[in-house]
């Protein structure tokens, strides 16, 4: 029997352990992870190729473009919902992230429930 995934998710995360954990949790929640990017440029390539239902975006990623700038481009160019994953709960980074009208925030450390609620809200917006 083939399980139908609840949705396809692109993971943008440069830390291997967090990516592994997030993928495991997303799979457990019934989502399909269609790719993992570690930089903004890689994320844009995978968005074009995989056309995910949602992007789970870490703010501090490798490369010249950070997660906030990458999210801005994805939302503008593809209208795909973006949920930020961040350890910053205040300060200028969060303010800048808010400026991109994100579809959700997940604050690290997160568990299954944090992921589920944020993703469902974003997909059903």
């Amino acid at each position, binding site marked *: 029997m083939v399980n139908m995934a609840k949705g396809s998710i692109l993971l943008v995360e440069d*830390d291997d*352990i967090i990516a592994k*954990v*997030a993928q495991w*949790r997303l799979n457990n929640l019934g989502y399909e992870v269609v790719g993992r990017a570690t930089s903004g440029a890689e994320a844009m390539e995978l968005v074009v190729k995989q056309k995910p239902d949602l992007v789970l975006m870490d703010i501090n990623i*490798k490369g010249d473009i950070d997660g906030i700038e990458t999210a801005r481009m994805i939302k503008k160019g593809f209208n795909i919902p973006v949920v930020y994953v961040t350890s910053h709960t205040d300060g200028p980074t969060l303010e800048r992230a808010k400026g991109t009208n994100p579809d959700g925030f997940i604050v*690290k*450390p997160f*568990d299954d429930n944090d992921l589920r609620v944020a993703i469902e809200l974003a997909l059903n917006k």
Partner: protein
Amino acid sequence: MGVFRLDPSGQITYINESFRKITGITFEILQGKYWADILPKEERERMIMAIAASVREHKMVEAEARYIHPDGKQYWLFGQVVPLFDPVGHIKGWVGTITDITQRKTIEVELQESEEKFRSLAENTAALLFSLDVNGVFTYVSPLINSYGYLVEDVVSRHFIDLVYPDDRKEVQANLRKVIEGEREVTSVFRIVDKWGYIHWVESISTIRVDVFGKPVGVYGVLRDVTDRRRTEDAIQLANKKLNLLNNITRHDIINTITGLFGCVDMAASTQNKEERSVLLAEIKDLIRIIQHQITFTREYQEVGVHAPVWQNLKDVMDRVIVNFSKQDIRFDLDLEDTEIYADPLLEKVFYNLIDNAIRYGETITAIRFYYQISDKGLALICEDDGVGVPTETKEQIFERGIGRNTGMGLFLTREILLITGITIRENGTYGKGARFELLIPNGAWRFSVTGSRGKNISRPTN
């Protein structure tokens, strides 16, 4: 000009009208009086001695003396007296002139007072005053220069730029040019190096010097030592940088690691596969170790820049570091002579990290060599090993504080410690042939000790 004559006994026998006007005394009163009696008592002896010399040496004498006019005012008179002799050489009298020089004398006194006032000001002010010619050569420097180890006479005729820290010379020269070319006043902050090789931050205000025709002939300047202020500013900047970084580590890096840790715990709890659980438990242990490293790093990083930099003998520092690696099968070659560098007291940690890294990641390493090369930029201190080296694409990354998992804090810390005194570090070895770390110590921040490693006080500055 007043003219007078005296007989051989010194009594006045003639005065002209000008003499009367200058002295305010008529000939009737003066006639037959001894010439010196018209002078104030305290001037008489000096004048009598001068006249006596004229007789002895058969020549005209000149002298200046104060004179109290009958109106009570004081005047200055300039007198010239010629002795007159008969054919057999006996004195037969004198003829002389007097001129009122009160106005000139008053100006001279005022000028002298003014000079004394300004000299006293220049010598007692907390700022160093100087003047330069159009070529930037000192024509005057106030005695405060002594506090930098130089005598006034050592500095006058030397080029101003000789005192400036090498890295700042270009900017200082440009500013001096601006003043010479007509900019009214230029304020600049730069470093100077004293006779002992120590670096001082100074603030200089320079203005143009012009001659009577308005042509620029040099620069007047005031130099204020702002080392303490600068140190405070640097300390605040460093404290802010450290606070931000420590905040980042505790609030971002550790939380990231904890996120991974929670995930691995959940994964380990949910798996039935023993092998997979064992791998996950090992990962959990690694993550806990990373948090431990992150916390250790915050403690070490907190120490950077806390204490003022000091001159340190490289050999002494290396001796203390190498002891920690005596059990390793590594050969150490040190070719450092008696070199001293000006660095944060945590310099020992720098060399410890370099050796520790070489041993940890060098794989095939058997020897580590430390030596130096001198260039116009400064002293390059090289740490070279014969291990596998650093891949080209990671040569710069190895100095970055790792994002996420934070491995390699050691080289980040190394760079931060060195930067406190402007020392830079880069890796420029050939991958496959060994690592080569080059520390560039700018001129002014290194020197050779003349009397050996323990002779800290006698050293040759390198600027």
